[in-house]
């Protein structure tokens, strides 16, 4: 599953809303739950925590004795907690980006007299390939893996339905985009 849309600051704030934590623990939990295919670099953890502290959303405790470079405990502030609450309450925007790219390619292909159906078929093949990978992942996987794979599968399936519908209407769309 793509995690590019996950906000690192808000996710770290959310983890801190559970309990005060060290940077190392935050990274471990982030990677386990949200960064499964893209672990969060330590540098990004501390730079993000630094910005959150600067903005008054977390406080930094004094260094604690112990091994390792970082023994500072971070806690969420009331302002940070309010931000997490607002974020959780607000629906995520529907993701039109991929559809826009596909749509733009189809329209441009038709405008330029290229083979739009071939492009759609290539996209269909790519989607099915990814769906096959995700299907393999979910086969016998833990519940978390199954749910993450399902998220990707349902989105790819929706794209494929759009590809099918567009392919069926290519002639009409060609007429429309070629009009002066």
């Amino acid at each position, binding site marked *: 599953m793509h995690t590019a849309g996950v906000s690192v600051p808000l996710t770290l704030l959310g983890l801190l809303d559970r309990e005060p934590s060290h940077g190392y623990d935050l990274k471990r939990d982030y990677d386990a739950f949200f960064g499964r295919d893209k672990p969060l670099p330590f540098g990004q953890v501390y730079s993000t925590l630094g910005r959150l502290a600067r903005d008054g959303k977390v406080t930094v405790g004094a260094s604690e004795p112990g091994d390792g470079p970082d023994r500072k405990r971070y806690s969420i502030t009331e302002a940070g907690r309010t931000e997490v609450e607002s974020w959780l309450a607000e629906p995520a925007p529907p993701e039109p*980006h991929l559809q826009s790219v596909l749509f733009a390619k189809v329209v441009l292909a038709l405008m330029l007299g290229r083979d739009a159906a071939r492009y759609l*078929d*290539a996209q269909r*093949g790519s989607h*099915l390939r990814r769906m*096959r990978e995700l299907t393999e992942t979910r*086969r016998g996987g833990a519940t978390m893996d199954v749910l993450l794979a399902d998220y990707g*599968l349902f989105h790819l399936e929706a794209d494929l339905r759009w590809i099918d519908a567009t392919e069926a209407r290519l002639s009409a769309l060609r007429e429309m985009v070629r009009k002066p």
Partner: protein
Amino acid sequence: MSTDLTLAREPEPGPAVSRRSLLEARDVHRSFGQTPALRGAQLAVGGGEILAVMGPSGSGKSTLLHCLAGIYTPDQGEIRFDGQRIDELSDARRTELRRTAFGFVFQFGQLIPELTVSDNIAMPLLLGDVRRKEAYRRADAWLDRLGLGGLGGRRTGELSGGQAQRVAIARALVPQPKVLFADEPTGSLDSLTSETVMDLLVSTARAEGTTVVVVTHDARVAACAERTVMVRDGKVSALTEYEVAG
């Protein structure tokens, strides 16, 4: 998502690499009255391969399956199974081939409602002169394998849609066919049940080494297969699979 497309492999008109073709359609044409359904369909399916056939409604995908399975005979072209032309066989020999070498699962299980679950599964074996006791022993083994243990005495009308399709899968696989043909096998099921049924179909077919040809409009069903081909306007095209960078 990046849209940089990198060609991962060339289109495969034939079966997956290193597999000998078990089933082939060569330039197959088939019409119904004045309406052409297949117009030069070409397809090769490897032994043990799990192949999905997709395409818009009316594209000819079910007709192709019926031709491959020896249910329809082509107007023109050849169907080969294990190197042998089956379109030239007599009706009786094709019927025998379908009974011994092919299994079928359709959208609605087409089970016999007057019979019990065990009767339905044992039926192909009884028709094949397997002794009654042995037929029911093997039928019961399949019940357990497909998670239907304890349901053998029920009438098929008492089953849920998912259970009925599992019975249909058991009935199709019990004679150990070389090829399993499935036409929209999960078309009447909800999405979760559909996944369970497809997982069972694929895992049992793999375990048995059975070749599967599944016709579907459902991308999630197709994603359970190893390869997908598209049927459009009565012709088959391979789907080129690109690896999307990003």
